[in-house]
């Protein structure tokens, strides 16, 4: 016998409390360290420049970055949505099998679509990082 998990306000309330507690701790720690922290009488103007190993900063602090990162993010969205679609399948898979509903073929088809997409993007070189 185990206590059944539920989805009522009583089960979500503690989560909210935990989040509030965590935020309170984080903010409290920052405030405390701000309060107790060392005071420097006269700050050098170099305290307010970006740290680049002691050399003066050169160029733009937000330089352009590789388009590969963008591609990765887009591919992530695609695949993550497919994973999300798989979650409902996983929760009912055994029940459907036990009820004699043929679910294996559709699942394998879905995974094959996912696999073909992955092979396609790898062959296209969307995930090629070395060289150009």
């Amino acid at each position: 016998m185990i206590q059944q998990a539920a989805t009522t306000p009583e089960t979500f309330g503690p989560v909210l409390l935990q989040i509030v507690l965590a935020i309170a701790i984080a903010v409290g720690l920052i405030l405390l360290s701000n309060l107790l922290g060392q005071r420097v009488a006269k700050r050098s103007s170099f305290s307010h420049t970006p740290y680049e190993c002691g050399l003066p900063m050169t160029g733009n602090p937000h330089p352009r970055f590789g388009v590969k990162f963008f591609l990765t993010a887009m591919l992530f969205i695609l695949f993550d949505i497919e994973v999300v679609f798989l979650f409902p399948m996983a929760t009912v898979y055994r029940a459907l099998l036990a009820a004699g509903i043929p679910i294996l073929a559709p699942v394998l088809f879905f995974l094959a679509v996912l696999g073909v997409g992955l092979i396609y993007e790898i062959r296209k070189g969307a995930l090629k990082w070395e060289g150009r």
Partner: protein
Amino acid sequence: MDWMYLLIVLVKAVVVVALVMAVAGYAVVGERKIASWVQERPGPNRTTVPILGSIPVVGWWLRRMGFFQLWADGAKFFFKEEPTPAHVNKLYFLVAPVVAFVPAMAALSAVPFGQYVGSDGVAVPLAITNFDVGMLFVMAVSGISVFGIIMAGWASNSKYPYFSSIRASAQLISYELTIGLALLPVFMWTGGTLDLFSIVREQGGVVGGGVFGLPKWFICIMPVSALLYLVALFAESNRLPFDMAESETDLVGGFHTEYGAFKFGLFFVGEYAHMTLAAILFSVIFLGGWSIPFVSMDAMPVGLLGAVVSVGVVFVKTVILMSFIMLVRWTLPRFRYDQVMDLGWKILLPLAVVNLAVYAVILALVEG
């Protein structure tokens, strides 16, 4: 909801947060000790406190083990200058450490640390809350911490933190796919439950028979899933050899280069809290949680003793796993960035898809 109920919940939350922060804090000392043993040096062994340190044998031993080091390091965070450089974007600069720290703590609220079997024979999870989509909640919430890294890197208005945050975010999202796909067979096996308590209860007992009997843990039933999940955990908690966000040799300190005092401390504690969370999750999902090998779930002690035993078992498994994670850090060199992405997309992800298909077929044969 009455006041008594709120008070109990509050006490539970405070205890969990305090324990996990203590474990995360001592993980820092533990990491330094393990590093020193791997590199054949004594490690932190000087820091001591007046009264505790002068107890004859114990005090000496605690000092040699670096037990008081954490207190000194923690206190030091408070008394350092807390700078907010003029060139940063103030709001996001302040919010970022909080966003990096809070998700690890929030995700803990759905993780069961043990069980309490009352006199009526009903097993109740020792968790802050017991809700039926526990694992989804943990995955969703701990995924938020990537925003802390992005915010910190962007708001710092500085080149190296910026590069670091972009690298780290691409890496984190890549390995999140593997985590999702590696866990799906577990949920298929347990018959549709996403709540961590039932997943642990499922793992009591033995699979196979005679001398070939193995504990019915998911690491024995689905070793490939466990391996995928373990590798992805290293990447998700930014641990070496996937330490792209903090690769000191090319990015100074990483996304928190411009931070100081406890604003930096929160990133630091958050990273170790994430590691602790990852280790607890792995021991709960794949290492059987509080199940002792070859002891059935119903044979576990009941009452208060049972609660203590179950929490102790989870704790021991978590500590062993964390020591393993640390040992890996001090054994392997850092990967190159393209190697990290290739491993994630071209090896782990296809392997996870094949693994899922294999378990779909196995389950169809078992049930069919």
